[in-house]
């Protein structure tokens, strides 16, 4: 498989080096990485500097429409390639691609801007404010130079990163993951076909190198070349990057996260409610076959044992269902997890429903299990009250789906204090109100280079 690069508007093809994808070990080849072409010197002004934000949004919206899978040969071809390099099932990748145009809808893009910038005019030019003494300060959200380290577990995630990079008018280098060294280039090619000379296109490069390759990272991770490294996720890749941070080069990290569900005793009011909530928890648990950070892994639940066991049985059934962003059969449960569950069951400390074959597993315990549930595994933990579950919430807890919704308001301050970032109605973890923060921050405001020009009257 060939993984071409896209460098500031130009497609680069070649078989200079061969790599193997993570997880599946599929081989792919890339052209030679010419760092001088990838890095724009600071003497050049950013191509998007004088392009109006409204024009950028128009172009992104047009790109969204052009990404419609049935009409886009690049994305169609990409689907076959990603199926070979990514552990996600092909059908799930296809659904992600089908949903991709939604990421570039006008309303969503505009709300990203307005929620990040009190006055979006700072993106288009110098905005002047005056203090009580008549001194004037001029402010501009100047375009940053950014490296985006894309995550491998969400093949359409690059589209959100491209949008973010374009909205702040940045000079963007996308470091693609080995489990998907294709999608970003396919999206950028789609843009280039709309307008090969568009400043958005000339602001974007997408390349691959093996994460941690010192010969490249030591060379380019410097404040002379970049202002921000934006990383989606965690793991050894981030630990590598941290070594290069210093004055002038900042990390904006969407940290590795886990998500949970909190279910109040109201769930047991009727069999219909149990069925509905079990389905909703299953929907939240299975997002990208539980590869996503917003996928629920633990369910803290009120109720007596017999009731909770009935809920577990219902949940296990719903985990096994085929969904838009999950398959009936995920990869099988890792053997180390299986052995832990086996031991707990043999001890009488846990009960389990479902199977170890990746179709869904529910483990009921009275305190959270010591391993990280993956591959459609849900650990249901009985708690006296939902407030007691707050002790299991920490800075790594991203999304908390709650039932009934009315109890969110009572819980949210305590959960925020514990470190959590987002509450939602259970069953909607993968849906967002546009323009909201991600991982408790408004990222665009952190990306830009806040440049000021003061006129003090003395």
């Amino acid at each position, binding site marked *: 498989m060939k993984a071409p690069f896209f460098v500031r508007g130009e497609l680069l093809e070649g078989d200079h080096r061969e790599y193997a994808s993570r997880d599946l070990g599929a081989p792919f080849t890339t052209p030679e990485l010419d760092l001088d072409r990838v890095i724009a010197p600071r003497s050049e002004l950013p191509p998007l500097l004088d392009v109006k934000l409204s024009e950028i949004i128009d172009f992104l919206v047009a790109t969204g429409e052009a990404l419609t899978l049935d009409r886009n040969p690049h994305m169609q071809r990409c689907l076959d390639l990603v199926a070979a390099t990514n552990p996600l099932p092909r059908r799930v990748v296809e659904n992600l691609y089908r949903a991709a145009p939604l990421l570039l809808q006008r309303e969503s893009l505009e709300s990203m801007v307005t929620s990040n910038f009190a006055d979006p005019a700072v993106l288009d030019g110098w905005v002047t404010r005056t203090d009580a003494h008549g001194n004037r300060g001029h402010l501009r959200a100047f375009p940053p130079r950014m490296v985006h380290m894309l995550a491998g577990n969400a093949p359409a995630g690059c589209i959100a990163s491209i949008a973010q990079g374009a909205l702040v008018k940045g000079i963007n280098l996308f470091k693609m993951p080995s489990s998907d060294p294709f999608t970003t280039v396919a999206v950028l090619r789609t843009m280039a076909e709309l307008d090969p000379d568009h400043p958005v296109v000339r602001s974007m490069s997408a390349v691959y190198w093996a994460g941690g390759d010192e010969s490249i990272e030591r060379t380019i991770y410097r404040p002379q070349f970049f202002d921000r490294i934006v990383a989606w996720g965690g793991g050894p890749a981030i630990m590598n990057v941290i070594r290069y941070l210093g004055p002038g080069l900042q990390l904006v990290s969407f940290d590795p996260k886990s998500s949970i569900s909190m279910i109040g005793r109201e769930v047991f009011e009727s069999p219909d409610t149990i069925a509905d909530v079990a389905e909703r928890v299953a929907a939240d648990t299975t997002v990208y076959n539980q590869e996503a950070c917003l*996928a629920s892994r633990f369910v803290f639940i009120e109720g007596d044992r017999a009731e909770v066991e009935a809920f577990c049985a219902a949940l296990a059934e719903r985990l096994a269902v085929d969904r838009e962003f999950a398959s009936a059969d995920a990869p099988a449960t890792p*053997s180390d997890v299986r052995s832990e569950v086996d031991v707990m069951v043999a001890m009488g400390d846990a009960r389990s429903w479902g199977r170890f074959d990746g179709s869904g597993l529910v483990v009921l315990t009275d305190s959270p299990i010591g391993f990280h549930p993956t591959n459609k595994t849900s650990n249901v933990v009985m708690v006296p009250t939902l407030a007691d579950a707050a002790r299991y919430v920490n800075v790594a807890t991203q999304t908390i789906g709650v039932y009934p919704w009315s109890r969110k308001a009572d819980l949210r301050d305590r959960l925020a204090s514990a470190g959590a970032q987002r509450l939602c109605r259970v069953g909607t973890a993968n849906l967002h109100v546009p323009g909201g923060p991600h991982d408790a921050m408004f990222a665009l405001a952190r990306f830009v280079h806040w440049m000021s020009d003061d006129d003090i009257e003395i």
Partner: protein
Amino acid sequence: MTTALEELLGRRDRDDRFDTPPGELLALQMEAAQERFAAHVEQIPLLGNRAEAGGVTVIKSPEDLVPVLFAHNTYRSYGESWLADGDWERMGRWLQTVSTYSGGDTFDGVDDLDGWVAGLEQSGRFVACSSGTTGRPAMLGATEADIEFGSQANVSAFTWATGIAPARDRRFFGLGPRTNVTRNERIRQALVDAFHDPGIDDYQLPLPMITTGAITAMILLRRKIADGTARASEVAEFERLSAERLHGVGEAMADAIDELIASREQKLFLSAMWASLYPLAVGVRERGFGAADYRSDTSLLTGGGLKGATLPPDYREFVHETFAIDPSREFNLYSMQEINTPFPRCPAGRYHVAPWVIALPLDEPGERLLDTSHGDVEGRAAFVDLSLDGRWGGIISGDKVTTDFGACRCGRQGPTIGPDIVRYADLESGDKITCAGTIDAYVTGAA
């Protein structure tokens, strides 16, 4: 009449124990495996569950063993919170689930892990805790028979590999930190008894013995930091202790260098990991001593990899040249804490599997037995160590190895493990980036 199992275990000290074609051994091994399985399936609840789930009622072939192998993390599958909360009753039930004996009945007066382990030992129920500091330590149940067999197997393998008889004519140098784990101490003592001259003092790196409880305390603090319940003063105290320990290591190493130089004319038996040996060798060289000052019959017992230490590529030669160690007198072994038997390295650089251990090379997921009929195969190491009495000897490791059932280049028959051993966990490159993760990624510094 001797049983198949007794017959195999009886080979421990025989000269030809690592020289039998696998085909000739198989029937005896299967009979012995069935003997162990029949007894253990009644005693170890987890094995009973596994056998039932896998539909295994009798062992007739190596394939029958695969479904009843335990994953290596089985011995870490207790809850960290049980340790933190001192829930010894529950720890006991857990131990019972993975061992052939009960985990104790009364826990009066037990106030920490060391106390729990000591209490069990009084009734012959040994628990060996591993000393990993980043995750839960493994807890491995063993009986007196296991401890005795394992200790002597180490002595015997040393002699087999180096040709050095247990003549009690050397000075024993224990150059690594010591742990208060009975199994480790008994192996050490067996080596001292066999090779050390009783007329002189043996040397031990002067560091306070590392207790299992201290290691656990470190792990529990890490847990508390992750949970957000650790107070700043607790973290500060931990950092202080770590710094103190580090300082202590420096002083102890200086002492060991002095002693190694002072003893240079003695016949030495050095025992240490490379990560300790290398800085000691550097220290000896810096003082102006080297190969010419040592006797030419120094022996070395080492094993394991570098354990995360970064050493120059020629570290082994450097150590050899410093202490005048002929490579033939370096004893290197491959083993794992979950089994009881060392596999000594032969002159051809391969590790020989003892006849009472059944090698079961598996595919990477650890589900399918690999075909070994056409030479070397690469895969996940799994073994059934039939010498184990206190727990089930069937284990799937985390190691990626090559296994060959054909004759070794050293001229002997029998399964061997190749020199390149890597942990699957280490193969996960630094290239992984995902938005999903746990609080463990947020714990820095401590432990």
